[in-house]
C-alpha cells in the first residue's frame, strides 16, 4: 500500500520521498524500484572512536536524500534502511544506523519541507515503540479484518499516541466483503479512511515481481488507494 500510495501522489505532482524502514524487502517491489545489492546508505556511515556507528561528517538529511536515495518510477525517491542479507544484518548495520539517525532530522532542511514523505514501517509495534517515525504527522493503521491484525493495530495506536500528538486513521486492507470492513470499523469505533479490497490482481503482481500500480492499474485495490490519496490530500499534502 505504501508503495502504491507514493506513486499515486507523485503522479499528482507531489515530490515524494519514500522511506523504507523494514529490514526485509517489500517497498522497493511495490514501488517498482530497482535497488543495488549493497544499500547506498552504507557509504553515509562510519564507526567512531567509541566503536559506535555515526553519520559521516557533512552528511545531513538533504545530502543523504540527494546522494543515497534511489530513483523509483514517477519520480519517487526511495531511501532505504539496510536489508537482511544471507548472513543477517551485520554487513549492513552501518546503513541501518545511518537511516535511523537521519529519521529525526528529516524535518530540518528547508529543501524537504514541501516534500511528501511516505514511510513504511516493519510489521508489528516494534518500530513504532522505538520511534522510527518521528517525522510522521499522520499514521495510517493498516488493518485486515482479523483479530490478530486489529489487536496489533490497537497496540500500535496506543504506543504511537504517547510520545507526541499525531493524527491516526484506520485503513482497512484485504477486505473480502462489507462485513469485514464493518468489523474493523466497529472495533476501532471510527470510519476507515479507506477500504482496500482483496484484489487477486495484486497477488498476481506480487508473484510476478511487478509494482501493483503498473501491473493492475485499473484494479479495485489501486482504485481504493487512489481514493485514499484523495482523502489524505486536504490534510497532509502541501498547498
Amino acid at each position, binding site marked *: 500500500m505504501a508503495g502504491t500510495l507514493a506513486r499515486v501522489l507523485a503522479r499528482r505532482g507531489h515530490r515524494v520521498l519514500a522511506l523504507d524502514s523494514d529490514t526485509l524487502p517489500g517497498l522497493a517491489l511495490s514501488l517498482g524500484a530497482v535497488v543495488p545489492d549493497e544499500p547506498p546508505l552504507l557509504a553515509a556511515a562510519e564507526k567512531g572512536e567509541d566503536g559506535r556507528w555515526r553519520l559521516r561528517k557533512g552528511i545531513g538529511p538533504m545530502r543523504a536524500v540527494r546522494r543515497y536515495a534511489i530513483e523509483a518510477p514517477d519520480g519517487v525517491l526511495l531511501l532505504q534502511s539496510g536489508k537482511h542479507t544471507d548472513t543477517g544484518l551485520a554487513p549492513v548495520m552501518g546503513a541501518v544506523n545511518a537511516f535511523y539517525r537521519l529519521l529525526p532530522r528529516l524535518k530540518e532542511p528547508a529543501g524537504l519541507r514541501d516534500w511528501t514523505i511516505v514511510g513504511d514501517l516493519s*510489521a508489528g509495534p516494534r518500530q513504532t515503540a522505538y520511534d522510527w517515525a518521528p517525522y510522521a504527522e499522520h499514521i495510517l493503521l493498516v488493518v485486515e479484518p482479523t*483479530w490478530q491484525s486489529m489487536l496489533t493495530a490497537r497496540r500500535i495506536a496506543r504506543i504511537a499516541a504517547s510520545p507526541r500528538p499525531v493524527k491516526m486513521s484506520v485503513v482497512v486492507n484485504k477486505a473480502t466483503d462489507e462485513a469485514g470492513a464493518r468489523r474493523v470499523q466497529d472495533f476501532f469505533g471510527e470510519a476507515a479512511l479507506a477500504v482496500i479490497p482483496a484484489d487477486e490482481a495484486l497477488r498476481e503482481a506480487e508473484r510476478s515481481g511487478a509494482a501493483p500500480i503498473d501491473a493492475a492499474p485499473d484494479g479495485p485495490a489501486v482504485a481504493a488507494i487512489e481514493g485514499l490519496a484523495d482523502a489524505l490530500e486536504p490534510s497532509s499534502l502541501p498547498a
Partner: protein
Amino acid sequence: MKIVVAGKGGVGKTTVAGTVSRALARNGHRVLALDADANPMLGISLGVGPEDTDALVAVRQGLETGDSEHEPTIEGFVERFGTDAPDGVRLVVASRIDQFDPG
C-alpha cells in the same frame, strides 16, 4: 520434539504454530507453546480468545513489574507465567512491546 515456526510477517506462522500445537496435544503429546513474538498473538490461534490473549502477562513484563525473585527454573517459569489453552496446551508468552521505548 522441539519445533520453531519462522517466516515473513503475515504468512501464517502463528496459525500454523497454534494449530500444530493443538493437533499434537490431541495426539497425546505434552505441548508447551512458546510465543516469542514481541507482538504475541499465538493465544488466538490456540483458542485462548482474542481479548484474553491481548491481556496475557508476558514473562519479561511479569518479572519487571513483579516484586518477587526471578524464577530459578524453567518449570517455574512455565507454571508461573503459563496459561492453559484448549487440549491441554500450555502457553507461555516471552515478551510484549506495548509502550513507547526509544532507548
